[in-house]
């Protein structure tokens, strides 16, 4: 059983840009709440597109029911796992880390863009905060800032909701003192549509990253 996690991303004010100052201020807020830094974290999302072939008809167009995008999520705290998500079909699959190699051999979907979410981790009593930036693999260009909040004592999503909302309010109050050009927001993922239960799991984390990516694409024009 896993502790409950909630993912939030930075939503800049209209016209404002992202910069590392915002990230530094968020980290400083974590410390002001009594957080102690205890290491780094990293999650990677790989966006894959189907490989079109001549046999698919004129112009190599895909049949309409073939998903245009397959997302892969790799949680670096668990290098043996790989999660595949089909957003359009609300499917999430937990697989072995060798799965991308299998796909490569099948020549069905090919990785197009890889994004890394990475930063520092802070322990705040029964809470854990992970604050970091989102950047394309092998690039320093910051495309987003995200934050994970984990509450160790509970793994039920429903029972931990009030605590998570309250923590978020305390976080926002603390961050508001810095007068930064934007705010963190949380977009709910519809876990039940993916067939996920009330008990938190890695699949829940993978689905939250997929939702977060969608938000980043919409607001920051990340080309994925």
């Amino acid at each position: 059983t896993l502790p409950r996690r909630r993912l939030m991303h930075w939503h800049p004010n209209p016209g404002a840009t992202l910069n590392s100052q915002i990230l530094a201020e968020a980290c400083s807020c974590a410390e002001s709440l009594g957080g102690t830094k205890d290491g780094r974290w990293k999650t990677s999302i790989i966006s894959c597109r189907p490989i079109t072939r001549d046999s698919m008809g004129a112009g190599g167009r895909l049949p309409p029911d073939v998903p245009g995008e397959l997302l892969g999520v790799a949680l670096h705290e668990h290098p043996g796992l790989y999660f595949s998500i089909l957003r359009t079909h609300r499917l999430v699959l937990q697989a072995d880390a060798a799965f991308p190699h299998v796909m490569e051999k099948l020549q069905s979907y090919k990785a197009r863009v890889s994004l890394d979410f990475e930063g520092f981790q802070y322990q705040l009593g029964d809470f854990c905060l992970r604050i970091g930036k989102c950047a394309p693999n092998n690039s320093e260009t910051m495309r987003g800032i995200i934050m994970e909040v984990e509450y160790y004592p509970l793994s039920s999503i429903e029972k931990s909701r009030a605590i998570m909302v309250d923590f978020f309010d305390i976080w926002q109050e603390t961050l508001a003192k810095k007068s930064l050009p934007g705010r963190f927001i949380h977009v709910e993922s519809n876990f039940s549509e993916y067939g996920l239960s009330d008990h938190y799991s890695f699949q829940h984390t993978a689905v939250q990253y997929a939702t977060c990516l969608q938000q980043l694409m919409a607001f920051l024009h990340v080309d994925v």
Partner: protein
Amino acid sequence: MPLVCPDGAVVAYAWKRQLAGQAGASAVDRTRLALKAFTDQKRRFFPHLEDEVLNHLHDGESGIAKRPRMPAGNGELEEKTLSEILKNLENEVPNMKISTYRRLDWSKRASSLASLMDDDFVDPSKELNLQNMGKLRPGSVTTPIDQVAVIELLVPSIFRVVVSLHPAGSVDPDAVAFFSPTEGGSYLHARGLSVHHVFKHVTEHADKALQYFISVEPSKALSMLLRWIADYQTLFAKLCSKCRRLLLMDKSLALLLPPVHRPYHQISSIGSDHQEAYHIGCSSYDA
């Protein structure tokens, strides 16, 4: 970690461990250490006795402290036996699963919980097994009532509480501890401590509540304790009665905690519906 005897009983005396590490200490040092350990434990577990004993010393009376009587309740359930207490509780709090164990059986259950919880892989069949364990566990159905030494109270997704009875089969609780339902391992016993701050602090408060219940009405202590515990199912939802917030940063502990204190004075054995809740800093009880 407290010592666990072969029969599953736990040695509570921390001073023994301290003394064991100081072979070269003089008799005076050992006595001083033992006195300090006992005084600390007395202050922690019997806070209400300290002033009473001092008052009696001042008055020059004998050392037996007069205990405040609980107000006589009308319509209180007749609960003389352990079976009656547990049966009534099951009816009053249907969403709390109550299980009973021999001491050694509980040790096995606690260890088996560790292997179930350790696996981070979501395995639907394991989750089903966990639920089935609740039905097939070697406890609630088959433990003869006169051998019950451990009561487990589980509110799914909220808490797991372990209460120890001494002697086995009696209605005399002697220890209580709160844990997350996700915890498992040999440290899960009535004198153990959760790895989570929230449950550590509830346990500390529960220790005091237990000692209070024993001191005011020993024959009803178990009944009052179990009902007082049941109120903690709102631990992660009920706002503090003083500051009206859920999470609050406790400045002295530097921890964000929900209201972990529930009042234990003037609790009748039939329980109360609208218990108040307080953060440590908002509460009138000593932290």
